[in-house]
């Protein structure tokens, strides 16, 4: 039954580092999520319109448009209140953390923290809390 709910859930990866983007894609796809990946905030703005993800794995510092700019531009809290956002950054500056939460982030996680197993657990925990 769990598998069924998972399989219908959509995750958008927004990450500019190709190696990490590929890794997250492989890890999350392995758990049968419907995964799409983009490389910056601008691409993410386009993707959310058609893909309407249940969860966004969002990096902060990216070329063209960063994660915080994306959150502001997409107006996530108003337009996509059901979409969960995990900010996934290797920066741990308090200002970024505060701003992420004020623009609708569900969690702020240090990228280097999560092993593949932990990433899957984190994603499933956040998605389950959506209910």
């Amino acid at each position, binding site marked *: 039954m769990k598998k069924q709910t998972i399989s219908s859930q959509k995750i958008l990866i927004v990450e500019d*580092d190709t*190696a*990490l983007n590929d*890794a*997250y894609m*492989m*890890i999350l796809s*392995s758990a049968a999520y419907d995964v799409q990946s983009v490389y910056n905030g601008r691409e993410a703005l386009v993707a959310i319109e058609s893909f309407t993800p249940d969860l966004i794995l969002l990096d902060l*510092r990216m070329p063209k448009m960063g994660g915080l700019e994306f959150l502001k531009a997409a107006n996530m809290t108003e337009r996509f209140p059901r979409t969960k956002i995990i900010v996934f*950054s*290797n*920066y*741990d*500056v*308090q200002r970024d*953390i*505060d701003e992420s*939460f004020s623009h609708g982030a*569900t*969690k*702020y*996680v*240090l*990228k*280097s*923290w*999560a*092993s*593949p*197993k*932990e990433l899957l657990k984190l994603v499933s*925990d956040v998605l389950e*809390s959506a209910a």
Partner: protein
Amino acid sequence: MNDFRRKNVSIFMSSVRLSSISSSLLLWLTYVSIGSAGCEHSEKRFIKLVIILTVICERGAHYKSYMQVRNITWQKRFWRGVPLSLVLIVLLVVTLFAAYTSQRANKTTARARLDDYAQQVSNELIYRQNDDETLRIETRFTDAYLAVYRGVETGSPIYSAGTEPRSRDVYVSKTTILKNGDRQWTIHLVADSAIVQSGLRKQPIAILVVGALFSVLLYMFLVRSQRSRSQEMEYETKLAVETTKEELLSLASHQLRTPATGVKQYIGMLLQGFAGDLSEEQVSLLQKAYDANERQLSVINQILHITRIENGSLEMNSTVFNIGMMLHDVVDEQQEAIETRQHSVQVSLPRRPVMYRGDEFYLRMVFENLLSNAVKYTHTGGHIQVALQRRQDHITIAVSDNGVGMTMDEQSRLFQRFARIDNELSIEAGGSGIGLYLAQKIVALHGGTIEVQSVPGDGTTFTVILPKNKKIHSFTREKACIIDGYAAGRRA
């Protein structure tokens, strides 16, 4: 940063120059108003001296703060200022000489004019009565030309031997020698004492007092405002340095973490079977690579924490939590390492749960470090004890082992940054020499201390003493981040 500093220094210097010019101007205006109200020459000279001294002091104060802002020492400033000072001294000497010469010339001219005048008009201005050697005054003339002689009766002696007025009564005092044929008179033009007392002198004294008071207040205000500005500048510069340091460090740690994160994901995927099953040997090798990468990430985090603690920018989250439960969690997390080394770990807690207010995240880091050290520095099959005790105004957490122990000398170096203790297990244990330094700083931020008791070969006991109900000022905003891998965000 340099641009920021330079910009601020230049703003500061403009404000110093402006205030200096305005204060000097006001002081001189005060002086002029006193002078024009009719002070005596000696008083004017005194006021001039006070003003010059005040301006010198003020300039000194400006330069002191200027040098503080630019980090220039007096010696440096002195040698840098020698050529300019020489030029200024030469200019000053030339000016003073010119002023002296012109004053002398003016005096000579004035005296000559008076002599000449006295010769020409002596019959009208002053006359000699009979054979009396006293010169008497003719008021018809003096009324017209010397207002101060008003009220003096015609025939009054200008000067009589033995009745010379006291010098402090002299308001207008001019002396000249009058020759008439073979006779010679010394003429003192002296104001009437009634006129002197009629209030003319009260005005300059009032102005002198008010003006001086005003100048002193103005001076104090300016010096004070400049001092506070200078302190503000110092603070701003310090803040800018720290912010830059913090940003640079965040950037550096980000750049270091990102490739390590990639390594972690890919090795993690291999270990977790993303590329098919692995042989035991492959798993063992990959696990070593994974662990090494984890150590690197942990060092990056520790360096970041240390820099933040030293900068005073570490932000803590003060919550009430069950410290016994946290100790159990810490032991559980290290169960794998404990089992690998075949240690037995005993956790003893008071019967009632101990609730403590502090930063759970950072305190957990402290006990993780203490336990991890105990595990690493105890030979296989050792015994480790974690004991929590509640006291009246504090709690103690003791982590004891029967490991390699330390000498007194080693104990004294233990909490120094990057300190490493060499013993038979240290190479195997690895470590960066940051953990205990960081632990001590974190405990200190909670108002507590870490004590150590150790006997070489017998074992070590680290005791963390944390005061209860201590208000901790460094706890600021809520930290809502997962660092180093503790379960779940701190804000859901």
